């Protein structure tokens, strides 16, 4: 079997998803025999942006250098996978969108002179075509491993789009909303995280992103009322959605 040529890039992000890439290869060491990595600055010293089968990109796009890099990556990769919520939706740094950029930068960095960011925080697919989206903050390493195995074998995953609640019920996890009366974003959040938070008795905070193929503005408003009654303020909900679903929130349709 020919090795799958992989490159892993990091844009604006916390690197937590890169850790998941490394963990997933530790859990599935056999993968290493079937992939060759040409770019992964966190893992190796020699890196070059070469032609690859799949480019895995972590992080959101926040300046023109990153846009250029991403375009180059797209040109040289047969497939591009957006890794983690930052790459898929923008991620936590989207919280600064709409705020005064200078104030935000000054509040965060002692030497703001080195920070070059645009006012917007872009998801990967708003800059280049993306073939796979693996959301999560951090990404579920098992989902990534499953995808890599299938890519090595010459195929791909068959996507199934459903909300987190399906996953909870299949696992028999007691419902945080109905049994505990706690706010949970599970009903409007895309599944495949393994229902991690509800399995520890806490509400989902939506890190896999809003189920925007189903939830339009009207339904989101209805849902907001429900979580508000459960004790989550509108501001908190807005913050969570902005932090984990920025890109899809701004595309949300009003009809449907």
């Amino acid at each position, binding site marked *: 079997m020919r090795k799958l040529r992989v490159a892993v890039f990091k844009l604006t992000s916390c690197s937590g998803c890169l850790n998941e890439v490394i963990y997933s290869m530790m859990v599935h060491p056999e993968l290493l025999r079937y992939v060759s990595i040409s770019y992964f600055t966190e893992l190796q010293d020699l890196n070059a942006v070469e032609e690859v089968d799949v480019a895995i990109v972590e992080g959101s796009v926040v300046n023109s250098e990153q846009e250029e890099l991403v375009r180059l990556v797209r040109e040289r990769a047969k497939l591009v996978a957006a890794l983690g919520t930052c790459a898929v939706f923008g991620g936590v740094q989207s919280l600064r969108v709409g705020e005064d950029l200078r104030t935000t930068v000054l509040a965060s960095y002692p030497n703001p002179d080195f920070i070059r960011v645009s006012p917007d925080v872009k998801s990967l697919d708003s800059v280049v075509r993306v073939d796979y989206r693996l959301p999560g903050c951090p990404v579920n390493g098992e989902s990534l491993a499953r995808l890599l195995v299938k890519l090595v*074998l010459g195929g791909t995953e068959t996507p199934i789009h459903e909300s987190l609640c399906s996953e909870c019920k299949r696992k028999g996890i007691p419902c945080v909303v109905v049994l505990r009366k706690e706010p949970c974003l599970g009903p409007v959040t895309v599944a495949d995280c393994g229902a991690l938070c509800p399995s520890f008795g806490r509400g989902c905070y939506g890190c896999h992103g809003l189920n925007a193929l189903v939830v339009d503005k009207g339904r989101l408003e209805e849902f907001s009322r429900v979580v508000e009654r459960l004790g989550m303020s509108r501001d908190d909900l807005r913050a969570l959605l902005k932090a984990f679903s920025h890109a899809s929130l701004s595309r949300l349709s009003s009809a449907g």
Partner: protein
Amino acid sequence: MALGRLLPKVGRVVKVVDEAPLVRTYHVEVEEFPEPSPGQFNVLYAKGMGEVVISVSNYVAGGKSVMEHTVRAIGSVTNYIYAKIGAGDQLGIRGPYGKGWPIREFEGYDVLIVGGGIGLAPLRPLIKCVSEGRDRYGRFTLLYGARRPVDMLYKYEHEEYGRIPDSTVLFSIDAPHPSWRGYVGFVTDLIDKVKLEPANTVAFVCGPEVMMKVASDKLLKRGLKADRVFLSLERRCRCGVGICGSCQLGHYFVCKDGPVFSYQDVKPYLAVRGL
């Protein structure tokens, strides 16, 4: 307890034919496989990737029967098959499933076939059936359209279709093309151009659902009865045997009660968008 219903048999791809861009016909040889009737489908399994429901477009009997499956690379499994499976490779196969065309019930009738795009695949065994049992059927009409000439299936057989005695065979493409001398427009337009004896005609239609609805309504206008017009429907078919529930259309399981239905049976359901 036997849990074999969903187990595939091991099939071997003996030949792959390029039909059209992203469309290939896979000839799969398999031992001890029930004979499919025209319009039935098989479920092909690409190891580790998943299954896909594909109609049988031709059947050659023998100790090891060979069945032809015309596959368009459009989803994850079909893309895999298109990219990775060639002659000599294995594919899992189970079937044949579903209710096919009721061609035997209509011996003595004029047969009209209307196909659109890849929809010709499940109709192909009907053409063979009429051609081989020519004296058992009346007038034969085949209307087949595709987007472009290159998208037509079984181009290597089209001349043969034209040689079927007492037949009319018309082709159409959607938009003008330099190499095309035939009709340009929808295949359903051709329905207006052929002679029909409505009382003695049975119609078999397969193509995109919109095209099938237009074709069926036109045929009704031309005087055919809704229970003499048959369509082969597509839905999300997963198990093929009516237990996964994915393919429901109203109260029908398309895999088990279909894929072939009389227009009369499905007209009320098809009339409601998204039912």
